[in-house]
């Protein structure tokens, strides 16, 4: 009994510790002057939105958010359309090269993306001239392999009779996918979309490499540039940085909290177990 109580207390204290930086991010973004004492973390008044105005004056928050949204939307679209097709083919169809494609899908998740950064930079920026374009930011992430894996595992778990019955009726595979498999796949779609969303929305290195034009930079990049170079001149530099951090973190955190039920071991478990 004592151990159980101790374990519970430790779990809750740990959770508070994990959450504290988020709380501190919001508090720091609302303070006029930074107060780094312990009492400063629990202020009772003197809140201001000045920091949000300050960061907005420097990096066009709305424009950066729209850029992040376009890049993330492009990746989501590519993943949902082509990823579902590939996942369905890998799970339910027999075709030449299926085994090789499956192996490649697994392998892709083991090789660090960063290794490929130099050759992909050479290809996208130098050979295809896609620097400073949405397409250049989207292409390396266009189809999320983990999502393909989740789709495959989900379609694989559906009963075979469903498909053989539809095929006996003479339905085409595209028709079976659209009207039989896809309506059942909503949970997998949601889980895979959530997982896909956090990739491009949070990605820093790649969009940082391909965009020099500030008007095209996603928020993660423009905020990082502000942290590195511009913060010194602000009245309350940390306040402005933290205000930008809140805006960057908010959409992903809100989506996650709203849909956290779909972010569970059993949803992803089939994928993990292989």
């Amino acid at each position, binding site marked *: 009994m004592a151990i159980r109580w101790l374990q519970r207390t430790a779990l809750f204290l740990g959770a508070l510790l994990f959450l504290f930086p988020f709380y501190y*991010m919001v508090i720091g973004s609302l303070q006029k002057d930074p107060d780094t004492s312990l009492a400063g973390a629990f202020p009772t008044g003197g809140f201001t939105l000045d920091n949000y105005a300050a960061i907005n004056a420097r990096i066009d928050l709305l424009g950066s958010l729209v850029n992040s949204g376009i890049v993330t939307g492009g990746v989501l679209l590519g993943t949902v359309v082509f990823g579902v097709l590939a996942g369905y083919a890998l799970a339910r169809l027999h075709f030449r090269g299926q085994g090789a494609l499956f192996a490649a899908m697994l392998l892709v998740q083991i090789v660090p993306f960063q*290794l490929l950064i130099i050759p992909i930079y050479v290809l996208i920026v130098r050979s295809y001239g896609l620097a400073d374009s949405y397409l250049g930011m989207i292409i390396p992430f266009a189809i999320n392999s983990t999502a393909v894996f989740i789709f495959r595992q989900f379609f694989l778990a559906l009963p075979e009779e469903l498909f053989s019955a539809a095929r006996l009726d003479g339905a085409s595979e595209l028709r079976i996918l659209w009207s039989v498999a896809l309506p059942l796949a909503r949970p997998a779609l949601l889980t895979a979309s959530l997982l896909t969303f956090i990739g491009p929305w949070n990605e820093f290195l790649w969009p940082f490499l391909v965009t020099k034009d500030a008007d095209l930079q996603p928020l993660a990049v423009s905020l990082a540039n502000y942290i590195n170079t511009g913060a010194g001149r602000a009245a309350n530099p940390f306040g402005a940085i933290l205000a930008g951090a809140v805006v960057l973190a908010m959409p992903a955190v809100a989506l996650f909290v709203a849909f956290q039920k779909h972010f569970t071991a059993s949803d992803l478990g089939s994928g*993990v177990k292989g």
Partner: protein
Amino acid sequence: MGRTATPGPADPPHGRLGALLGRQPVGILFAAPYAVFLAAIFAYPLGLALWISFHDYFFAAPGAQVERPFVGLENYRAVLSDPQVRRSFLNVTEFLLINVPLTVLLALLLASALNTAIRGRTFLRVAYYVPYVTAGVALVAVWLFLFNRDGMVNQLLGPLAPDPSWLINSRLAMPVIALFVTWKQMGFFILLYLAALQNVPKELYESAQVDGAGRVASFRNVTVPGVRPATTLVVIVATITGANLFTEPYLLTSGGGPNGASASPVLVMYQRGIEQGNPDVAAAIGVLLVLGVLLISLASRRLLERD
């Protein structure tokens, strides 16, 4: 499916065509965009990275015809004799030595605690997962605020605060980054362990209880061996995450400072390859990095799954 089925678009083709394309050639069409994507964004760049690393490669205007002679192992020699590159590999080793054991231990403990039915599970899950779903850049911003010289951590420590402060201290910069990444990625590894725990048969816990084993003993004798394959996966994924380290040294310790003490191989790769325009040297760093990750992955499989 058989010969009696009504002929339809998905009817299996027979004979030579079927042998060549498979039973349902429409699958090739379905999978084609993804296959092309993997070839263009993964397979071809992988080959290109190797090719670049063995040649005297430099950036040129699109379409320009330039000579890029084969230089053998010259780039690798340059990389291995570069003290900053060597330093970055040592740094990432230090990072992994802190991050990987800490991740395995905490993730497994937290997952098995979360696996029991307790009140407030939703809150706990959200709390432990939320750093994983949040942008590294946003989280780095708070850690900069917390760990700077006049930050809250030093205020709390008072006279015990390290001098020089955390992020500009050559001995502490890398451990702080390792802690940051452990915290940020923890949720994902808890998730992996939670999935693995569903596969540990409940009867094993019951029989351990019958044998008089306490909670600690059954954790050691049932849980730990029961999730061993997941532990291999956690070690491998954590190693890959560590090998990818870039945002934290770039922003948290402003470019791998102080004096390269927290520079990661990917940061040096970026500096050499793109800032200084030596993609050949950078590609060689990348190839060495992947070889290192492969070695660690194979070794951890051997060590953790030897029985």
